[in-house]
């Protein structure tokens, strides 16, 4: 389960904001351009997405809030995501908290349960929950038909990933 998402300075979310998700169906609504897909990208970014073009950007520094009318740009973008596994498993931790930061000058840091770590550690740790930026579990805006254009080998890879 996605438990909690904390953001500050990430894309259009200049101020610190927290979302406490519940079980079942969580729905996010709002006008065009309000920041809904930016929230999806915050989740995907905190999972360790490294391809800037998957985040509608040319580089990671573009994740930092770059200002608005009468509001200056931020110096840092930070996202913290807390997740629990799909099913209770004594072999897995009950919860994982990952955090990712990037400064306007491009310095990147990662945390796992509050402790500094490498991006690789984030990938591996979330991988034990079956989470990662490339999972079929995340369908981005405009991408729903992707399964229909996937090659047979790619579809097999998706099923293998689940296995």
């Amino acid at each position: 389960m996605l438990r909690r998402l904390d953001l500050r300075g990430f894309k259009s979310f200049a101020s610190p904001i927290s979302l406490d998700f519940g079980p079942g169906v969580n729905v996010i609504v709002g006008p065009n351009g309000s920041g809904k897909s930016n929230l999806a990208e915050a989740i995907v970014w905190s999972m360790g997405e490294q391809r800037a073009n998957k985040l509608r950007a040319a580089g990671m520094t573009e994740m930092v809030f770059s200002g608005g009318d009468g509001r200056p740009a931020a110096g840092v973008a930070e996202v913290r995501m807390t997740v629990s596994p799909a099913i209770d498993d004594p072999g897995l931790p009950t919860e994982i908290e990952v955090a990712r930061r990037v400064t306007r000058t491009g310095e990147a840091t990662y945390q796992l349960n509050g402790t500094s770590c490498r991006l690789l550690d984030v990938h591996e740790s979330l991988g034990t929950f079956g989470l990662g930026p490339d999972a079929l579990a995340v369908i981005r805006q405009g991408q729903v038909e992707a399964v229909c254009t996937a090659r047979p080998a790619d579809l097999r890879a998706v099923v293998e990933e689940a296995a």
Partner: protein
Amino acid sequence: VTDGFQQIFTVVQERFTDAIEVLFPGGAGRLVAVEPEDEDGEMGIEISVVPAGKRARPLAMMSGGERSLIALAFCLAIAMTRPAPFYLLDEVEAALDDTNLRRFLTLVRRLSKETQFVMITHQQPTVEIADTLFGVTMGSDGASQIVSRRLGDSIEGVARTTVRRQ
């Protein structure tokens, strides 16, 4: 490893066929294991769906809504077999007509008893199955705010101008 795959795949196949029955009433769908195209290629999985009254055609010839439903059926089939911790779906129902949207939401609601969904939407029927609702707005200073986390009338202000309801 291959046996583990075959076990999972068999269940995914059944769930896909079940999902297609809900999304394409009177139609039929299945996942087929296919030979690799190249000598040393991998085995693959091909999708075959025949809507009610129609003949089997390549996925490319199907409509936008039909392709969305098929892709969602595949995703849900895996969710019914080996669920991920959560599913994050950003405007995946954009191409669906009202009837198909409700069929899709029936499956989501059913699955949501065991599995968490986070859905971004402009569609009122999707809002109606929410257990938790978040409203996002853009301030005049170019910064996003979250205006509500509760169900009920506190979300009305945001939903009224943005969620399509008539």
